[in-house]
């Protein structure tokens, strides 16, 4: 929860964005994130982000579901309340497989959705600063975190020379907060002709 200084560069083409990401990283700047209107293939790689561990979490949730199902059903049908169903053995594994499978999927799916929301800090009422509203429409918005030593003018020049259509410096909240956005949508499509 702290205000930080960011340099923001807007691009309108992936083909320009990728070399720009490379240049900015090579120059030693720390890219906070790139906001894009759609999922851009390979961008996570270009940004040098580590592989997500969401799938490992998913595996663990799945195994938990399997274990829950097996222990629960087998306890009920063999210990707690054994029933004779069609002359089948009490420990009727084939009949349980569909339920074991379903519980595995349910645990994995729900767990992964919640983990995804946690990792991306998404929840009802959670707000984050929007660096450029057109990131949800047609612009690729690169946000670079400034340190004390960052020369914002140099950085802006670097972005422009790499094809950024618009650059600016923003001081904004780094994390998230509960609340509502101010009504700051007025300059969404301002008079500057971008594309």
């Amino acid at each position, binding site marked *: 929860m702290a205000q930080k200084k960011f340099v923001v560069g807007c691009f309108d083409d992936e083909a320009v964005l990728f070399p720009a990401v490379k240049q900015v990283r090579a120059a030693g700047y720390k890219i906070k994130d790139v906001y894009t209107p759609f999922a851009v293939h390979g961008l996570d790689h270009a940004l040098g982000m580590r592989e997500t561990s969401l799938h490992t979490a998913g595996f663990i949730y799945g195994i938990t579901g399997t274990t829950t199902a097996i222990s629960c059903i087998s306890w009920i049908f063999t210990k707690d309340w054994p029933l004779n169903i069609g002359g089948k053995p009490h420990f009727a594994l084939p*009949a349980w497989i569909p339920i074991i499978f379903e519980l595995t999927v349910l645990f994995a799916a729900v767990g992964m959705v919640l983990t995804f929301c946690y990792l991306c800090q998404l929840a009802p009422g959670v707000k984050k600063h929007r660096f450029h509203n057109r990131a949800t429409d047609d612009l690729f918005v690169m946000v670079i975190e400034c340190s004390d030593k960052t020369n914002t003018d140099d950085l802006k020049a670097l972005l422009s020379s790499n094809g950024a259509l618009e650059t600016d410096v923003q001081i904004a909240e780094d994390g998230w907060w509960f609340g509502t956005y101010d009504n700051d949508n007025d300059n969404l499509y301002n008079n500057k002709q971008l594309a």
Partner: protein
Amino acid sequence: MASIKEQFEIPGKLKTWSYALIGVGAVALLYGMFTKGFSTDEHEQVHFWGTLMYNTIFWTLICNASMFFLCFNTMAQAAWMQSFRRIAEAISTLVPVFGAITFAVLIYVVVSDKHHIYHWLDAEAVAKDPILKGKSGFLNPTFFIIWTTLAIVLWSYFGYRMRQLSNEADVAPMDNETAKAFNIKSMVRSGFFLVWFGLTVASTIPWLWLMSIDAHWYSTMYSWYTFASSFVAGMSLLAVWLIYMKNKGYMELSNSEHLHDLAKYMFAFSIFWTYLWFSQYMLIWYANIPEEVVYFKHRVQGPYKPIFFLNLIINFLAPLIILMKRSAKRNFTLVAFMAVLIMFGHWIDFYQMVMGSLMKEHVSLGWLDFGVLSFFVGVMILMVARALASKPLIAKYHPFLKESVIHHT
């Protein structure tokens, strides 16, 4: 693309190995044919022709899976497999060859009235049997021969047409209009194959060739189950060839991204196979009706018990556990190992589908099975290598090739 090796030269070692395998296989095959195939003992006859049947059907179907793979990708306008499409084409050239062997074996079985293999061939028994009588519109020699002929000829023909069209991508760069026309034409031709594939491999052919061995029994899962089995083994075969060619320094445009997607097919369809395997098993186990359970009785509780569970371990547990991780699917050594294991597993699966019904008293898996297998493997290696050498390895003017080169998973 100047540095791409387009011409495959068959390594001497590969030839030696394939000739050796064919040699060993031919000896086993001929010895088996004279001691068993033409013996007067019906048990021996069933052993030999049954072994030949499941091997030849298995190899025809898994080679056909390559053409199916090409066709559904073409239909979906998928581009990622263009960089190694010539391997799939080369494998599919075996459909006429193995198809002819299958045809010869099946027609021999039907014409020489081997009712110990196909019980419905016995006209007297059928006349007295209301169940077989009811099925006789489908299960009769005439329909069997016509449908088998049609199936094999049309797979070969539609596959041939697809491969011919692919040659056009070798000639010259295509402009926009030509490329569009080429794309439409590819889709139309693959459509013919796909429709025929659906009417045969995914439905009638497994009923006719395999399920009718147990003429009284039926399962609605059976065709899909057979299809899944042959498709996952077919994908494994494709992966093995891709890895072999990479090892020999060819197929520069295919990399771990393409391998990753192929291994996903191996992984996903292993699970799909298990889903069908289990659905077929569980419903019969649950209902416990004698005329249905008869299929599984000797498989689960009789002599085939080890095979039955080996089948499940190789074809479900091993792929599930080993191929689950992303890094495993991108590892050439591991995928090669798993591909060979999966092919072996589904060969065992076909073994128990056919021999499990023909020889219920004991498991006959032995020299004859592995001999015949070695014959088919040898023929497969030699013919695929020749087909690969007969064409450029890259369809270099294919409109989708670039998309395949930059493929990223």
